Structure formats: C-alpha cells, structure tokens
C-alpha cells in the first residue's frame, strides 16, 4: 500500500504545475541536485524553514496557519509559540518553551544580522589565547557508491604552528578497496614538519 501511495504522490508531483509544498532541510536536501534552487528561494523569501530549530513538523503546522516567513513568526510570543502542537511521529507534541526560546533568539540574530551569545563558547581543555600548535582535519566519505570500495575518499590535515605557513597534507584515495586502504595508510604515515622537528 505504501508503494502505491508513493507512486501516486510522484504522479501528482509530475502532473502539478507548481512545486510541491515542502520545507527545505539540510539533511533532507543535502545531496539533492535541486537543493540550490529550493534553498535560494527559501532564503530569499525568509521562509521559516530557514530558521534553525524550526523542525519539519513545526514548519507544516505554522505554514498551514499562515505563518510563512520569519518576520511573521517573530510576531508570535514565546509563550504562544511554545504551546503550538506540531506532528511528531504518530502523535502531536508542543514546541515547548526551550525550543520556542531558541527560535525567537535565532530569528533575532537573522533579523539584526548580529551574533547572539547564549553563553561563552568553550574552547578545548587547557586552551589559552593563541595556543599553538593545533591541527585541523577534514575527511569526506562517498555515500553514494558502495560498489566503488572507497569509504573515505578525501583526507586532509592542516598543522598550524606558532609561526610560519601552516603545513597541509592532502590525500585522495585511488579506486577500489586498495585505493581506500592505501589512502588511509598514507594519511597515517604523514610525518608533519612539526613531528619531524620533535623527533630530531
């Protein structure tokens, strides 16, 4: 039955002359080829879906009540927003005071184009201003092609020292399981200038 319902939904979308009414979402739209088109429109319209903390259920409930952009949403009091019930699995659940407060603060940041600090962000244990060296990592995995045999296809590491240009190590995996394995081993084998300095 679910398949028939899904096929009918696709047929309705294909026959429609307008885009389906759906909120944008980072996870949901992440790898969709139409993401930029939908997101650009949503950001331009200040759609409530572009407000972090407005979940999909809240979007449907609010959008259906005529609250479509975040200026309109900001007009709602925190107390009223907290009491709004939205779809939550098979049930309905209040947005609640904690999330309502975050939504209001988030909109305030968007409207004023300023950062709002809820509390001072913690930096790593032992942090002192300007502490170096530090390392940045950036790994990327291929979620689309399990047959390729490559899980992580991009390894990046940046070493930032007290002075001088940061040293980067960048590795791209070759094809297949062997490429995956070799990429990982090359990454592990990297001995940064800092490591070499420590060893000598």
């Amino acid at each position, binding site marked *: 039955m679910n398949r028939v319902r899904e096929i009918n939904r696709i047929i309705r979308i294909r026959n429609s002359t307008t885009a389906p009414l759906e909120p944008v979402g980072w996870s949901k739209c992440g790898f969709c080829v139409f993401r930029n088109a939908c997101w650009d429109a949503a950001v331009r319209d200040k759609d409530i879906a572009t407000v972090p903390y407005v979940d999909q259920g809240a979007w449907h409930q609010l959008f259906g009540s005529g609250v479509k952009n975040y200026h309109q949403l900001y007009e709602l009091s925190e107390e009223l927003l907290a009491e709004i019930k939205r779809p939550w699995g098979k049930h309905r659940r209040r947005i609640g005071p904690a999330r309502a407060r975050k939504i209001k603060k988030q909109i305030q*940041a968007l409207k004023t*184009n300023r950062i709002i600090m809820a509390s001072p*962000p913690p930096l790593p244990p032992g942090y002192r201003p300007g502490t170096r060296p530090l390392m940045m990592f950036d790994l990327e995995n291929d979620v689309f092609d399990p047959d390729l045999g490559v899980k992580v296809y991009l390894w*990046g590491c940046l070493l930032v020292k007290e002075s001088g240009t940061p040293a980067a190590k960048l590795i791209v995996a070759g094809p297949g399981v062997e490429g995956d394995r070799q990429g990982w081993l090359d990454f592990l084998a990297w001995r940064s200038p800092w490591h070499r300095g420590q060893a000598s």
Partner: protein
Amino acid sequence: MYDAISKHLFLPTPSYGLKWVEKLAGFQRSQEEFGGLWSIITYDRYINAPTKEQADKILDEILTYNQDDLIASLAVYEWLEKIVADPTSHVL
C-alpha cells in the same frame, strides 16, 4: 567546534555548517564550485577520467577544495578565539 558554536551562539545564518559560518569569519574560497555533492561528483570524474592529464587537472580541483575546507576551519577557529577573547566585538 560545531558544538561550541551551535550550543552557545545564535548566528545570523540559516545553517551552522562550515560553508555558512566561514563567511562570518571572513573566509573566501579560492574556487567558485565546492561543497559535499560537488566533491563526490568530482571524485567520480577523477576516478573515471579517460586520460592522466584530465585526471591530474580534476585532482587539483579536489585537493584545492580540501585545502580550502581546512583553511576555512582554521579561520572559524580563529574567529571563535576572538569572540571568546572579546565578546562585545561580535555579539549582541
């Protein structure tokens, strides 16, 4: 860093992902095209490139993207350091 930002700050952006936060930190990418989806597609083009010359050119784009991600992360970290050191300069 993501936790330090998302749990303690409200940013004037629709996302707290690197590609949005790096702009607040003043970082500019060296390539016009980038992103997770772009990277996966470009990696696929690299693996299937018909000639070594083409493969090398595509590889260069992928490595530049990865390097930009790393330097963007550093820019965000340094931006966060400034906020912690002097909250009044950046925040309400």
